[in-house]
């Protein structure tokens, strides 16, 4: 042994054409691949090659990557994460970080275990690389077993005795293959292949249910989406008996005590509020739609919902106009404290990851941008308030928003224009 540390620069992918659905609402590096996040396999491969130090360059989802790296130290690697605004090429990375004196610059497009097998270069590579990498990756995973040549099962995988598995085949952890199903392909963690279904040269993505008597051929089934790796076509299936995500429903935006409090306030105040609204005249309610909240990465819950209808009192100009939205809090659709509602059109016009961060916090009655003094039309500072609230709304900030909002409510400060007046 020379005693010198082997150092590599490792570039995490930003995105890859055709693999958007594979990544979902999270980093592509953490997409499940043969039972583990792809990055997990890569770090395992680096450690096995004797690498000791890694400078990891991350452009997309750096905090999720950091969280993932903090969760485990099984690779015995020293990993330092450096954020980049865009994914650098290997040449640019080597030049920019020349002082690091890396022995090699690697990307996640190829796993260190098999540098000649592309994994992320296309949808086809994402599927087909599994056949070559399965015998290299599976033996090192806890609980996997080769039940016949080229057929591997993960921890707690359930295969009915009447099911037929043909190599290359991977049945991931906690996946289930029902009676008379036939699988020649890859079934990822927590998925179900129902009875008499056929998987042929295909991948069933994580937490996906393939319905009974369904034929899946040269495709990837990801939740309710069918991606043909040969043609690149994407089909969204609405018939859950054919294909469906096995994800739990989105959690309510407000807690049970918060919802009860909203109901009590509605019951106690409705005569006074409605009387005042009627006295003021004009149309009573303004109806609007709020864009659905996006679930943050890693939650593995349904990423998108439908726009949420809500009402405001048209004749009120203060925060009281949001009084009917208390019902949305009761229903668990909105939170007491969150980001202002955006119409689906406004949400569609948000550009880039920074602006879209707005939608990762629940829609609220009392909101961060308004408490900080921003009102429609929303400018960059309002977007910064919303993005930061979505990223790190601590108890102190929530308390400050509540106090500011109550002050606005009871001192009758105007400044909440109707959504119709916002651009």
């Amino acid at each position, binding site marked *: 042994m020379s005693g010198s540390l082997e150092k590599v620069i490792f570039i995490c992918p930003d995105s890859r054409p055709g693999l958007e659905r594979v990544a979902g609402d999270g980093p592509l590096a953490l997409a499940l691949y043969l039972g583990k996040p792809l990055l997990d396999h890569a770090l395992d491969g680096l450690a096995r090659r004797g690498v000791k130090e890694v400078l990891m360059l991350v452009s997309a989802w750096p905090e999720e990557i950091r969280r993932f790296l903090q969760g485990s130290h099984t690779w015995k690697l020293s990993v330092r994460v450096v954020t980049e605004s865009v994914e650098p090429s290997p040449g640019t990375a080597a030049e920019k970080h020349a002082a690091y004196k890396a022995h090699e610059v690697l990307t996640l497009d190829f796993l260190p275990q098999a540098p000649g097998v592309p994994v992320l270069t296309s949808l086809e590579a994402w599927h087909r690389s599994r056949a070559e990498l399965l015998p290299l990756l599976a033996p090192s995973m806890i609980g996997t077993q080769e039940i016949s040549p080229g057929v591997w099962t993960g921890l707690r995988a359930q295969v009915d005795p009447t099911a037929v598995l043909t190599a290359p085949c991977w049945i991931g952890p906690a996946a289930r293959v029902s009676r008379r199903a036939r699988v020649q392909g890859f079934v990822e963690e927590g998925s179900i292949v129902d009875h008499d279904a056929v998987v042929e040269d295909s991948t069933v993505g994580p937490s996906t249910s393939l319905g009974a008597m369904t034929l899946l051929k040269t495709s990837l089934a990801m939740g309710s989406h069918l991606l043909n790796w040969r043609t690149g076509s994407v089909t969204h299936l609405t018939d859950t008996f054919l294909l469906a995500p096995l994800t739990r429903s989105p959690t309510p935006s407000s807690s049970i005590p918060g919802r009860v409090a909203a109901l009590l306030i509605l019951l106690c105040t409705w005569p006074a509020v409605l009387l005042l609204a009627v006295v003021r005249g004009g149309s009573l309610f303004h109806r609007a739609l709020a864009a659905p909240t996006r679930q943050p990465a890693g939650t593995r819950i349904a990423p998108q919902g439908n726009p949420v209808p809500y009402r405001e009192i048209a004749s009120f100009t203060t925060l009281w106009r949001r009084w009917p939205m208390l019902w949305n809090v009761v229903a668990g659709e909105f939170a007491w404290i969150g980001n202002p509602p955006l119409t689906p059109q406004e949400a569609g016009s948000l550009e880039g990851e920074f602006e879209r961060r707005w939608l990762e916090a629940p829609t609220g009655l009392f909101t961060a941008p308004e408490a900080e003094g921003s009102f429609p039309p929303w400018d*960059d500072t309002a977007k910064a308030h919303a*993005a930061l609230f979505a990223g*790190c709304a601590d108890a102190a900030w929530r308390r400050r928003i509540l106090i500011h909002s109550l002050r606005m409510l009871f001192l009758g400060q105007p400044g909440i224009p109707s959504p119709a007046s916002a651009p």
Partner: protein
Amino acid sequence: MKSPENVLVLTAPSELTANDASSLRDKAKTRFTENYTDINLDCSHLGFIDSSGLGALISLQKLAAQRSGTLRLLKPQSAVIQILELTRLHRIFEIVPG
């Protein structure tokens, strides 16, 4: 590569909050004369930034972008980098580590 005379160099205060955001914005607007395209903001002393401060940085970025330039944040501390990452603003600004 931009020549140094095209780069306006500013220094961020130790805290960039609602109180200081508008003064930084105003200072940049006043000093960003026609010969400049880029803005380098020395963040080595910046220990805390809030959402109003982030709004000021976006204004500076837009100011530079109007002349096809860029905003570079020089030597930001880890707490500031964390905020930039949480808001995904690391994708918009060029961060030059210390």
